[in-house]
C-alpha cells in the first residue's frame, strides 16, 4: 500500500464516513420514527417517496434547504447563527471516537474502524454531547423570544440534572473495565465473556433513562414540548438552521444508542461472546451485530415516544434527584466494593 493511500486517502475516506454514517442513520431514523409511530397508531405514515417512504426525510431536507431563513430583528445574530452549527458539529465530532468494529487487516495495513482512539474517549464523548447542549441553550436565548427562552431554561436544568447519573453510571463501567477507552471496554467484555448490561443492569437502566432525557426525547422532551412551548428552543428557527437542530437531535440519539451498545451490550460482539457453542455467530460481521443493536435502541426511542405522555417539569427533576442519582450512587458504591473485594 502506497503511503499516499495509507496516509491520505484512507484518513480522508474515514472523515467522510464519519460524516456520512451519522447522516445516513439520521435519515433512516427520521423515516423510522414517522413510520413506526404511525404504524403504532393505526396509520400508515409516509410511504410514497421512495420504497416505503424511505426517501421522505431527503425530500424534507430538500424542502428545508430551499426555505427562507428567517431571523428575528432583535435576535443575537452571532449566537443565533452559531448555535445550530455548534449542535451539529459536536454531535458529528463525537462520532470520531465511536469505534464501529474490530480493525480489519488488509495485507500489511490495519484499517481501524474508528478515527481516533483515546484512553479517555468516553470522557470526550460525554464532554462533546454536553457542548451540543450549549447550542440548544444559546439558540433559545439568542432567539429573543419567550417560548425558546423557556425551552432553553428547561434544557439547562435538564442537562444539569441528568449529566450526573450519566457520569456516575459511566464510572461503574470504567471501574469494571479499568479503562475509559471505548475499544478497550468492548475488548474487556469479550474477554470477560459477559456484556456489562447483564453484569450491571442497574447501571444500564439508569444510563438509558438519563440519556433519553439528555437527548430531549419523549417522554422527557420538555425543552421542545410541542403542546406547551410550540417548538421549544427552535421555535424561531427556519430553513436549514432548523434542519441542523432537527438532524442533530437524531444524530445525538444515534450517538447515545452507540454508547449504550458499546458500554453495556458488547459493541460489535455477537451475543454470549464467552459461550463456545455459539461461536458460529462470529460468522456475521461485527459491524452488523453492532447495527442491529443500535437499531434496537433507536426503535425503543420511537416506541416510547408513541406510548407515553410527557413528564412534567417538576416530576422530571424529582425523578432524577430522588431516584436516579441516589440509585446510581448506591450502584457505584456497590460496584466499587465488588471490584475492590474481587
Amino acid at each position, binding site marked *: 500500500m502506497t503511503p499516499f493511500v495509507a496516509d491520505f486517502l484512507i484518513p480522508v475516506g474515514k472523515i467522510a464516513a464519519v460524516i456520512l454514517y451519522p447522516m445516513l442513520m439520521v435519515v433512516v431514523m427520521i423515516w423510522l420514527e414517522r413510520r413506526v409511530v404511525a404504524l403504532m397508531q393505526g396509520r400508515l405514515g409516509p410511504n410514497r417517496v421512495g420504497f416505503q417512504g424511505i426517501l421522505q426525510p431527503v425530500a424534507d431536507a430538500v424542502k428545508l434547504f430551499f426555505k427562507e431563513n428567517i431571523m428575528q430583528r432583535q435576535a443575537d445574530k452571532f449566537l443565533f447563527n452559531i448555535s445550530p452549527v455548534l449542535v451539529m458539529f459536536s454531535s458529528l465530532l463525537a462520532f470520531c471516537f465511536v469505534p464501529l468494529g474490530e480493525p480489519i487487516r488488509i495485507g500489511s495495513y490495519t484499517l481501524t474502524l474508528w478515527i481516533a482512539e483515546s484512553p479517555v474517549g468516553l470522557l470526550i464523548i460525554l464532554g462533546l454531547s454536553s457542548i451540543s447542549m450549549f447550542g440548544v441553550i444559546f439558540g433559545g436565548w439568542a432567539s429573543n423570544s419567550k417560548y425558546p427562552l423557556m425551552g432553553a431554561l428547561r434544557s439547562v436544568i435538564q442537562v444539569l440534572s441528568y449529566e450526573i447519573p450519566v457520569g456516575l453510571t459511566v464510572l461503574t463501567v470504567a471501574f469494571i473495565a479499568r479503562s475509559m477507552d471505548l475499544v478497550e471496554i468492548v475488548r474487556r467484555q469479550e474477554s470477560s465473556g459477559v456484556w456489562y448490561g447483564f453484569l450491571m443492569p442497574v447501571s444500564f437502566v439508569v444510563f438509558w433513562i438519563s440519556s433519553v432525557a439528555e437527548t430531549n426525547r419523549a417522554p422527557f422532551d420538555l425543552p421542545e414540548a410541542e*403542546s406547551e412551548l410550540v417548538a421549544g428552543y427552535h421555535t424561531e428557527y427556519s430553513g436549514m438552521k432548523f434542519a441542523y437542530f432537527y438532524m442533530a437531535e437524531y444524530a445525538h440519539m444515534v450517538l447515545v444508542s452507540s454508547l449504550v451498545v458499546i458500554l453495556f451490550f458488547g459493541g460489535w460482539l455477537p451475543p454470549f461472546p464467552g459461550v463456545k457453542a455459539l461461536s458460529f455467530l462470529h460468522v456475521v460481521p461485527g459491524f452488523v451485530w453492532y447495527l442491529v443493536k443500535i437499531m434496537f435502541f433507536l426503535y425503543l426511542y420511537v416506541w416510547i415516544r408513541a*406510548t407515553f*405522555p410527557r413528564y412534567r417539569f417538576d416530576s422530571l427533576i424529582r425523578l432524577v434527584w430522588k431516584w436516579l442519582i441516589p440509585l446510581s450512587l448506591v450502584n457505584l458504591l456497590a460496584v466499587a466494593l465488588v471490584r475492590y473485594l474481587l
Partner: protein
Amino acid sequence: MALREIDLNMGPQHPSTHGVLRLKLAVDNEVVLRVVPVIGYLHRGMEKLWENLTYTQVVPLTDRLDYIAALSNNLGYVLAVEKLAGIEVPRRARYIRIVLAELQRLASHLAGLGFMANDIGAMSVLLYGFEAREGVLDIFEEYCGARLTVHGIRIGGVPHDLDGALVARIRMVIDGIPKRLAEIRTLLDENRIWKGRTVGVGVIGAGDAVDYGLTGPSLRASGVPWDIRKDIPYSSYDEFDFDVPLGRNGDVYDRYFIRLEEITQSIRIVRQALDGLPAGEISAKVPRVLKVPPGEVFHTIEAPKGVLGFYVKSNGTDKPERVKMKSPSFINLQSLEHMCKGNLFSDVVGILGSLDIVLGEIDK
C-alpha cells in the same frame, strides 16, 4: 422582582388552544400567576343571523357552534322551538334522537379525551380515540349524509328513519368501542406519568364549581350530581336506565375518568334505545312555513360539554325575535384561571384540554 414575571401569550396560534383561543398568561418562570382568556376570534354573530332566518333555517347553523358535537346543538335548539310552538314529537322520533345524541356524546368525548391526552403528550391516544370516533361519524354519514355538520334533527322529528341495516351497523360500532377504550385505559389509567400530570392538577371544589357555573362532565368531576338527562328529563330520557358517574377530587384525572365512564353509559343508553325502538311516525306534522305563537322559552339539554341552553323568543312570525344560546364551553372556560393559578405552565394545556372546550361554541 420586576424581572421575575413574564407575560406569555398563548395563542391564538398555539398547538394546544383547541382553535383560536388566546390566553394571556403571567408566569414566574414556570409557575402560572394569572390567566386571562381572550376570546372572540371566531365570533360570527350567530345570534344576529338567527334573528334573520326562519326557524327551520336556523337548525343547520347550530351545527357550527360545537362542531365536535353538532347534533347536540341541533337537538337543543329544536327542543326549545318545539316547546315554544307546542309540537308533540312522536315517540319513535324521540328514541332516534336519543340514539343520535348519545352517539354524538360518545364521539365528542372520544375526541375530547384524545385532544386532552395529546396536549399532555400521549399522542397515540388521540389517534385511538379518533379511530373509534370514525365509526360513529360513519353512522352519521349513513344516517343523514354528513359527518361533522350533520343537521341530523328537524323541528318536529328526525329527517330519516333508522332501518334495520343501520341499527345493525350502530350495534356493530358500539360493540367495537369498548375495545378501543380498553386500550386507552391501559395506556393512561395507571400510567405513572399520566397520573403525575393529572392527579391533583387543576382542582376545583364542588362549591367553587357551582359558583363558577361549571356544568357537564367538568362539574360532575367535582362530585356534584347534576345531569339534565336525569334531573329534568327531556326527549324520553326518563325511560332509560343509566348512571351518572361522579368524581371526587375535581382534578384533571377525574375529568378524564368521568368522560371515559360517560362513554360507557352512552353505549348503554344507545343499546336500550335500539332494543326498545318503538314503532310509529318519525316526525310530527309541522307546517312548511312554521309560525310560532308569541312567547318565550328557555330550554336546556345535557350536551357533551355541559348544559346547553337555548332561549327562544318569538313574535308570531316565521322568524325568531331573539335566540340566545347558553354555551357550556363559554361558562366552563371562565373557571380556567381558578384552576390554573399556582400550577405549572405545563398544566395549563392539560387543564384546558380537560375542560374540553370548543371555540365555535364559545364565540358563537
